[in-house]
């Protein structure tokens, strides 16, 4: 593999091209619909004759289902159907479709429940209230089984078996290794290098999308199913639903025009989609299911909690020599996207440094808790919390400059992570320089206050295809109408991050038209090409490339005609910019875009101009075609009496290649900061015997406006050869550095080392007490 990658070494460079639309301030294409309340979410869909569904959930963390009696519920007036696992095909599904053993979840299980909140039956009734009442009339007989909640307990020999045949409850393992790790540690020891080991505990976090899980399914006698779903991937929902219902993919239509947030939690099949579809198929009536906030918190998935053991060797002058890490993640009851988080966490744990020897052993362990999955950052925020704090502590232990150490070891452009990935563009060093400058400009901040830093990087979409999609990762079709307006059909999913706007910008730039000429169509599997959807920061690069290719295809057809029409010498180059078709060398010589389109369509026997584009990564290693880089600085003050944190400011130097939508980019930066700050010091999912203790927005605290600090961004521009117009990921990676940077701020402010998330006042006070005791004993 590595020889193949090497053939693709490009030098990164900055372009001096002046763009008409890219990197200019534009309004979101769906902005007016959103600020006028016209945007219709799945939550708002109401169809004639629609029924309302509710789900009965397991009160036990682990139990065998002996019997479910639905007869009393069926007798309640207004109840139209009650379904259990017996009304389904009993197919075990999962998003890692290529691996049968990882397809382990029956929504409405037949034999066992494995976490509190797992669906066991679903009701459809004429009102939500009746459906709710009917739940109380379903009699479920359980045989309660011993349960286990923590991965380090579940991996023990005598632990309860959660999935038959899965030894020690180990769901997936992932080994990443390069260089001779044992040799490198031995060498480090021999040469007087510094070796440090630490244990860390990283908590879970809930996505807390403002729109809870919601679906409206409408099955009709023609044998077709239409589902409005709050999903990050209409195509995944279509394919997974078709699979569990025994239908052809093409007979299932998924519509997701407006989605009220995703953050990694909405691209698996969920119980709202599945149960509404099963009920609708049974009744041939539309059925709507919307999760309450409590259901959403208790019974959907969460950021993966992780236990990390990290051992690192550093030379006395700050060269990173070797690392070995072991990670045990709380997988909860099922696999979902957690298997990907296991891999990515281990990979990004090495970022952004050039380790000569690196080893990671990750174990994803089943427990009787809600399943864990992907969430913005995809395992990297946890990995960085451990890595970036430990490196900071090692610098302090050795009296080294943490900026210098990071610079010395940082990724640079055209670097190969041995056997794993090939880095093309990389602005890491510049990010470190700029943050160092900024931090030093702040001067002395006074007592109990300090700035902590963390560097990291992230992928621009995953290369892996465990979903086994037969389609290109991204596709686009562009159709030019006679009046010059452009129909842009994409499969990429806008969940609020603004991909519809990004794609419109790329289309307008490529075709040389105005953004208002582009009519975007997305979020409908009947009318849009398949695309893997919004996850892993993939759309700007992958769907962006597909859109660019489709527009170049259409533009080429137009320009071919323009050549003939204008009677040009073939050595001239033509282009279109701001609706003006012109000779590049002599921009005043040209014709109007609208006139060209009319003539070209006439010349094509009345056919509209159609361009097609697609993107599937090839020969780009095992992880991603391109990587963003960043360093973040968090200015925090801690009250040593109360342990309370006040964040003054967050500054991020950020290399996302060529920014496409500057307003959207700032939004991603600020949004990621609030979500990552929540993860760092507020949000947690405490449980007692598998029961969530804070299943509402009163007790589950998120960052609100008054706590949100000032944020700033220093844009480090690189050009990514693999990205459309040099662009790469910009939204997800920004979640990665914050917890680590805050931990480092606390370290410098109070001299304590925080190894558990979230960084609550209790933990801070405990660490301060321990520090005092230690000092007293000296």
């Amino acid at each position, binding site marked *: 593999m590595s020889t193949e990658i090497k053939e693709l070494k490009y030098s990164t460079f900055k372009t001096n091209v002046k763009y008409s639309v890219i990197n200019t301030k534009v309004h*979101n294409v769906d902005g007016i619909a959103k*600020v*006028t309340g016209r945007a219709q979410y799945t939550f708002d869909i109401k169809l004639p004759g629609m029924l309302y569904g509710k789900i009965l959930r397991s009160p036990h963390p682990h139990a065998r289902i002996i019997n479910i009696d639905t007869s009393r519920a069926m007798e309640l007036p207004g109840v139209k159907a009650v379904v259990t696992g017996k009304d389904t095909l009993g197919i075990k599904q999962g998003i890692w479709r290529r691996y049968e053993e990882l397809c382990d979840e029956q929504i409405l299980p037949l034999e066992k429940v494995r976490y509190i909140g797992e669906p066991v039956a679903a009701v459809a009734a004429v009102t939500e209230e009746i459906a709710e009442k009917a739940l109380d009339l379903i009699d479920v007989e359980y045989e309660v089984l011993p349960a286990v909640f923590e991965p380090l307990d579940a991996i023990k020999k005598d632990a309860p078996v959660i999935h038959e045949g899965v030894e020690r409850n180990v769901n997936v393992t992932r080994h990443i290794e390069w260089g001779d790790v044992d040799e490198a540690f031995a060498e480090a020891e021999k040469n007087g290098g510094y070796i440090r080991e630490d244990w860390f505990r990283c908590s879970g976090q809930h996505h807390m999308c403002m729109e809870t899980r919601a679906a409206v399914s409408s099955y009709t006698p023609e044998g077709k199913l239409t589902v409005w779903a709050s999903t990050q991937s209409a195509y995944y929902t279509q394919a997974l639903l078709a699979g569990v219902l025994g239908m052809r993919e093409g007979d299932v239509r998924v519509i997701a025009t407006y989605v009220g947030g995703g*953050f990694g939690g909405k691209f698996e099949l969920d119980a709202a989609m599945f149960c509404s579809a099963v009920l609708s198929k049974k009744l041939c009536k539309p059925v709507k299911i919307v999760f309450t906030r409590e259901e959403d918190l208790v019974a959907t998935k969460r950021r993966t909690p992780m236990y990390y053991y990290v051992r690192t060797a550093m030379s006395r002058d700050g060269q990173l020599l070797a690392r070995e890490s072991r990670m045990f993640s709380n997988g909860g009851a099922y696999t979902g996207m957690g298997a990907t988080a296991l891999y990515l966490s281990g990979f990004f744990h090495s970022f952004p440094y050039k380790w000569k020897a690196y080893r990671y052993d990750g174990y994803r362990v089943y427990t009787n808790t809600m399943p864990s999955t992907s969430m913005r950052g995809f395992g990297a925020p946890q990995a960085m919390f451990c890595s970036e704090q430990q490196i900071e502590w090692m610098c302090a232990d050795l009296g080294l400059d943490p900026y210098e150490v990071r610079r010395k070891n940082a990724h640079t452009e055209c670097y190969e992570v041995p056997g794993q990935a090939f880095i093309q563009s990389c602005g890491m060093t510049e990010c470190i320089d700029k943050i160092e400058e900024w931090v030093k400009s702040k001067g002395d901040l006074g007592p109990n206050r300090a700035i902590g830093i963390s560097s990291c990087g992230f992928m621009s979409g995953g290369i892996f295809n465990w979903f086994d999609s037969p389609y290109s990762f991204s596709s686009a079709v562009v159709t030019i109408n006679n009046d010059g307006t452009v129909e842009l059909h994409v499969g990429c999913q806008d969940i609020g991050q603004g991909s519809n706007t990004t794609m419109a910008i790329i289309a307008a730039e490529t075709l040389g038209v105005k953004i208002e000429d582009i009519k975007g169509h997305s979020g409908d599997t009947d009318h849009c090409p398949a695309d893997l959807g919004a996850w892993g920061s993939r759309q700007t690069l992958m769907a962006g490339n597909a859109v660019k290719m489709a527009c170049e295809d259409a533009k080429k057809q137009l320009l071919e005609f323009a050549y003939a029409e204008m009677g040009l010498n073939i050595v001239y180059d033509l282009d279109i910019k701001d609706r003006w078709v012109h000779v590049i060398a002599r921009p005043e010589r040209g014709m109007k875009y609208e006139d060209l389109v009319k003539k070209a369509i006439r010349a094509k026997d009345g056919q509209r101009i159609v361009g097609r584009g697609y993107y599937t990564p090839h020969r780009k290693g095992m992880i991603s075609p391109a990587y963003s880089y960043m360093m973040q600085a968090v200015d925090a003050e801690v009250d040593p009496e109360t342990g309370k944190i006040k964040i003054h400011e967050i500054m991020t130097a950020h290399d996302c290649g060529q920014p496409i939508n500057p*307003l959207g980019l700032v*939004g991603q930066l600020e949004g990621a900061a*609030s979500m990552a700050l929540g993860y760092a010091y507020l949000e947690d999912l405490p449980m007692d015997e598998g029961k969530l203790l804070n299943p*509402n927005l009163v007790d589950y605290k998120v960052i609100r406006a008054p706590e949100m600090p000032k944020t700033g961004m220093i844009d480090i521009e690189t050009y990514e050869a693999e990205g459309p117009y040099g662009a790469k990921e910009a939204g997800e990676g920004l979640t990665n550095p914050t917890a680590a940077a805050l931990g480092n701020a606390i370290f410098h402010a109070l001299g304590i080392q925080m190894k558990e998330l979230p960084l609550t006042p209790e933990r801070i006070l405990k660490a301060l007490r321990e520090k005092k005791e230690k000092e007293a004993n000296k």
Partner: protein
Amino acid sequence: MEKRALKLSVNGQEYEVFIHPKTLLVEVIRDHLGFTGTKRGCETVSCGACTVLVNGVSVKSCSILAVQVEGMEVTTVEGLEKDGKLSPIQKAFLDNGSYQCGFCTPGMLMSATAFLNENEGREVTEHEIREGIEGNICRCTGYNSIVRAIDAVAKGTYKEE
């Protein structure tokens, strides 16, 4: 309890609905009258997605019974725009990118509108703006772009057309 008739005005239009007395205002707005711009994001009066104005004062419409607004004037997000002209705060949200998924946006706009109305003619601090929208959760934007939008309107950058 028996169902009863309720008269209220929503966005300047009189309506009469026949409801169970325990019906929440948000249910009347969304389910009976079809103003689905107003959202719901929790059951604990925590998220602010259902915020509307009742006689000009911001109210979480999941926190009161519909019968409590008998004869009163309710304004929802659909009432901010007049004959296709966006209100200053709507324009400021567009210019500042103060929304992403958009689900909290209607409630956020109503809290912002109430805050701006209450503070008309006086200078407001950033801290006051932040407290003015404290009851509204936005999971996408990190609030700062919303604060910038409200600040711009408070400073008179946008004029009512």
